[in-house]
């Protein structure tokens, strides 16, 4: 091969350039700590990294949501514990009232019970981060408050049965609040079986006596009229002792459908919420109707209604207080209402604890998954610094040799010896 001077110098330049290009790449990896600084460094790696970023950002948000919900639940539990301690106090007063020696001090007891009532009401209206703990999802006003004549406590918000749901993982939507209805409210449960063999037009009627906030008795009447196979129309009314409806206009009928094979309820007005709020125009009658247990079956119709309470805790306490002021000690029925409420609150505290545990479990799961994703990300992205430095050194060595050799040979020619 014939060697020309340009060939020599070009050869030298080429090898020096490729050596420097390798050094440049290694050096940028070491200084940024990342193997992939632009998509063309590794297109498939980039797409993986973006996916991992996405997963990490999602787990961040789930962790955030869980933290937030835990704080909310902590406040909920605290409020419930406050309520419970007031209820226990009240029960103590009622027990003490059974002692005839205390009959002189009924007024003082009335004041004590009034204190407890106000404390419970206060807890029922407590907030976390601008949200009423027991206000459902309607934060337009305080959930509970006295009526204008101070004679009763009523639900001030439109609806306290709204469920607050929080997404705590890819597939889990967790209910994090205990609704006002669950804790303080009245729930009418419709049980039993509607005969699927009945004819279109057949009507099944069910009735239950309910109380308003002031303890007055009313009658709730529900009619289920078959409109088509597996489909019924629910119309309802609430009438006072004189038989007059409390509604100025009849409430809209609800269409209910059942699963033809299992007989379970599948929709109410096309939706999948089987519990809804019923209240009168004044707001003194306010309860939730729960249709979850209603079924359709072959047997003859056996539909029944039951209520979790006749009077709510607020108004029971008001009645006890007012009666004490009139010199009347609490009845056994009233005492039972308070005892039942105590059990209910304890159950709700347990519920809140269960949700809290569920959140902790999910958080741990998310943290584990997160650690896995972070490890994958690091594998894809992080530079093995030790390895890179070793390579850098060997490239540097090669470059130095290139310099030395070219400095030795490039300037020489026959010219030097002539």
């Amino acid at each position, binding site marked *: 091969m014939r*060697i020309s001077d*340009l060939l020599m110098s*070009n050869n030298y330049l080429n090898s020096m350039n490729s050596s420097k290009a390798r050094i440049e790449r290694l050096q940028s990896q070491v200084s940024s700590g990342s193997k992939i600084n632009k998509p063309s460094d590794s297109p498939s790696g980039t797409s993986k990294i973006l996916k991992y970023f996405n997963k990490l950002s999602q787990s961040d948000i789930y962790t955030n949501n869980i933290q937030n919900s835990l704080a909310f639940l902590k406040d909920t539990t605290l409020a419930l514990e406050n309520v419970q301690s007031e209820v226990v106090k009240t029960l103590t007063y009622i027990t003490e009232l059974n002692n005839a020696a205390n009959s002189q001090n009924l007024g003082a007891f009335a004041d004590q019970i009034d204190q407890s009532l106000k404390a419970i009401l206060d807890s029922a209206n407590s907030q976390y981060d*601008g949200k009423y703990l027991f206000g459902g999802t*309607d934060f337009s006003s305080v959930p509970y408050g006295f009526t204008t004549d101070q004679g009763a406590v009523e639900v001030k918000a439109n609806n306290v049965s709204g469920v607050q749901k929080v997404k705590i993982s890819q597939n889990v939507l967790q209910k994090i609040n205990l609704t006002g209805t669950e804790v303080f409210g009245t729930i009418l449960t419709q049980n039993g079986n509607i005969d699927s063999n009945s004819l279109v037009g057949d009507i099944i009627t069910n009735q239950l006596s309910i109380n308003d906030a002031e303890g007055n008795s009313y009658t709730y009447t529900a009619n289920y009229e078959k409109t088509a196979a597996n489909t019924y129309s629910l119309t309802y009314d609430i009438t006072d002792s004189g038989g007059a409806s409390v509604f100025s206009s009849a409430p809209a009928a609800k269409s209910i459908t059942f699963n033809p094979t299992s007989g379970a309820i599948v929709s109410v007005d096309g939706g999948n919420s089987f519990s809804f709020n019923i209240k009168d125009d004044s707001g003194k009658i306010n309860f939730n109707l729960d249709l979850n247990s209603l079924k359709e079956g072959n047997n003859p119709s056996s539909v029944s209604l039951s209520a979790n309470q006749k009077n709510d805790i607020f108004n029971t306490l008001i009645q006890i207080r007012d009666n004490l002021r009139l010199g009347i000690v609490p009845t056994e029925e009233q005492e039972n209402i308070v005892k039942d409420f105590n059990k209910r609150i304890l159950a709700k505290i347990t519920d809140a604890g269960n949700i809290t545990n569920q959140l902790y479990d999910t958080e741990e799961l998310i943290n584990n998954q997160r650690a896995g994703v972070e490890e994958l990300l690091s594998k894809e*992205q992080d530079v093995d610094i030790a390895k890179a430095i070793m390579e850098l050194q060997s490239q540097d060595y090669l470059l130095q040799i290139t310099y030395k050799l070219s400095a030795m040979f490039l300037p020489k020619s026959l010219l030097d010896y002539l």
Partner: protein
Amino acid sequence: MAISRIFDLSRRSMAWYQRAMDATAHNVANSSNPDYSRQRVIFSTERSEISGGFIWGAGVKIDHILRIRDELTDSGIRTNNQKFYSSNQHSTINGQAEVLFTEPSDLGISTLMDSFFSSWNELSVTPNSSGLRSDVIRAAEKLASKVRTVYEGLDTIKGDILNDAKAKVNDLNNKLKQVQQLNAQINEASAMGYSPNDLMDKRDKVIDDLSKLANINISFDSNNSAIISVGGAFAADRSNVVEFKLVEVNGKLNIVTSQDNIPANISGGELYALTDSYSNYIPKYQNDLDLIIKTLVDSVNSVHTSGYSINNPPQTNINFFEGYENGVLKINSEILLDSNKIAISSDGTQGNGDIAIQIAELNSQKLLNGLSLSDNYSALVSEIGNNKLSADQQAESSQLILQQLEQQKMSYSGVSIDEEMTNMLIFQRSYDASAKLIQIADEMLETLLSLVR
């Protein structure tokens, strides 16, 4: 036979060796000129004389000066020039595009889209928080501004490509003119019996440069004139030269002849990369981005319209995004004024965030091409990265071939100082020897003359 013949023969050879030294000097002077082909002096014997029954040699003469050049290497270099320069340009353009996306980092559309959806998720926990509502708006604004930067950046690249292509077409036209002029000069010199070596070097250089711009075809006619066609369209020969221009039809950039609009089918060189990127690559990137953002806008809006705002009275059927066009993502101006108009309540109560959860869930739903939006986006980013990488790899492989061919060319045509110095010594010795002969002949003549005295 006269002694003067020795004088004559030696004088002529001295003159020839002096010329040979000239050629060596020319070679040495051009030893660093990469476009120069070394020239070799080809000696031959002078026409001999017949006298006294013998054929007498009449000394040396320079037959011609040979340009050392290998046509095969030249054509290999030109073919690989087309490949290398188009791949290299593709790589540059895709490199500019990938930088715009700033991936993978916290500043890219991917992360901003994630935080946009996360902000909805967070809002769903405390739906009545005005702080979280503004967070949603801020996240949307950040996303919008990045989308706009990327889209406008791609537009700028397109504009730059167009300017560059215009300049390159001008360059092409100038070079074609030069080829035609050089053809004419070379032809003229050849007709007069000269070998126009340096003009041919010049023409080879211009043709090499042309092969960097576009796919050209070269042939030589009997008069050693180069006939060039660009992308199949005749471009230049000894007497004619054709001008080319850029035309844009339906967003596609083409090169046609200025006079007759004959299209040149460009498939190599920098002009190929420029027209191809302008017509296909950049519009595809913009299109893909458009599709992703449009789908985002449509799906967020379609969920958002079903929700209720929390201002009094609650409103429904509100769009979150006003629209998206040409990289500009607009948030509903009413929402910008009043964050309470973000409609995430499914029943009108302030504490209901069901719609926000549904919007957050869009992030993992397969909304486009059977993939989620972020997967679509990372597919786009890795496509750009892939295009750059494969252009880099093609450029690298043709560069390796080019380097080898250049080495071959330099080995064959390049000047070696050692060789020239050796030649110089040889020519000098021959020159010296011829001079010595004259001296000897002079002495012979002197001897002869002294006989006469």
